[in-house]
């Protein structure tokens, strides 16, 4: 395995320069995907027989829930890479992934609660998936709190990396025990509709939205990691050079 590209990929400068090139295209692709998915889901997909139009919230709830969970695992693996190979960049990715993941978990929670009102008559129902989502939100908040609790940034990174790993081990346990607990108390009521058993016309926009959300997550993460890189590498020459370029562009009124 040629380790060279792995360590080269780890250098913040290389990461910053490479991402600068795709940023605009990536942003445009994300926007197109999200808009088409939303319009398609809200306007063109047929309504659900039982739930009527409130079912359309699935086009926001399911992608956000997907990303909330995937984001946690991405954050934990970035932390693990940081711990094992002591890569500063992967710590930065972990640090920026936490708030984005927490925000998406909150979106999933809010849309799940709003969806509960027309379906079950109350905003908060202890449905298995909504409860697990709430616990995931607490895990995110825990990781973020530990990250900023230490005076030295390094200790904070290591501590939150270990906590994220501990969380990853616990997520399947928590999800399974919440599911089991849910069947114990309310076996009859329906869970939020699971995606695959849906009518193709309903399912296609969902796929577009999920893809759109993945691109959106990557975009938001790249943007905040780039800021973190500039903040950490402010003393280096290449950052000074970039700042210089940025200033001359601004002075000449181009930017």
């Amino acid at each position, binding site marked *: 395995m040629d380790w060279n590209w792995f360590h080269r990929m780890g250098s913040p400068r290389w990461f910053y320069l490479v991402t600068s090139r795709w940023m605009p295209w990536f942003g445009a692709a994300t926007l197109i995907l*999200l808009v088409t998915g*939303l319009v398609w889901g*809200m*306007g*063109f*997909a*047929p*309504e659900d027989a039982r739930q*009527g*139009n*409130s079912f*359309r*919230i699935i086009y*926001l*709830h399911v992608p*956000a829930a997907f990303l909330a969970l995937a984001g946690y695992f991405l954050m934990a693996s970035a932390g693990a890479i940081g711990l094992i190979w002591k890569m500063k960049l992967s710590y930065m990715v972990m640090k920026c992934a936490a708030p*984005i993941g927490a*925000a*998406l978990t*909150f*979106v999933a929670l*809010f*849309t799940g609660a*709003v*969806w509960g*009102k*027309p379906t079950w008559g109350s905003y908060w129902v202890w449905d298995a998936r909504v409860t697990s989502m709430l616990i995931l939100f607490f895990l995110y908040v825990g990781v973020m709190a530990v990250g900023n609790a230490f005076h030295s940034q390094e200790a904070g990174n290591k501590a939150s990396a270990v906590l994220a790993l501990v969380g990853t081990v616990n997520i399947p346990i928590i999800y399974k025990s919440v599911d089991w607990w849910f069947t114990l108390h309310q076996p009859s009521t329906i869970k939020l509709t699971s995606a695959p058993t849906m009518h193709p*016309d309903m399912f296609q926009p969902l796929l577009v939205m999920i893809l759109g959300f993945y691109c*959106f997550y990557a*975009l*938001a993460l790249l*943007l*905040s990691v*780039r*800021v973190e890189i*500039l*903040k950490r590498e*402010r003393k280096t020459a290449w*950052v*000074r050079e970039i*700042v*210089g370029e*940025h*200033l001359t562009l601004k002075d000449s009124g181009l930017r």
Partner: protein
Amino acid sequence: MKFQFENLPDFIAMDGHGFYVWAAVIVAALISAWLIISPLIRLRQMLKDIAQEVTIENIHKSEGEGSK
């Protein structure tokens, strides 16, 4: 695959469920927008700070040469 609603008001009302659907859409849109905008704001602020640092250092350097 055709537009499910006759006209715009019907589309907004979504026969009764419109409030919930649009509330979810608006909140999701606001939070997502914030996730993109806040790093951009921080980026501009960061560039300004670094630029300021550079200018301060240059001044010190030039004073250093001047007084040598």
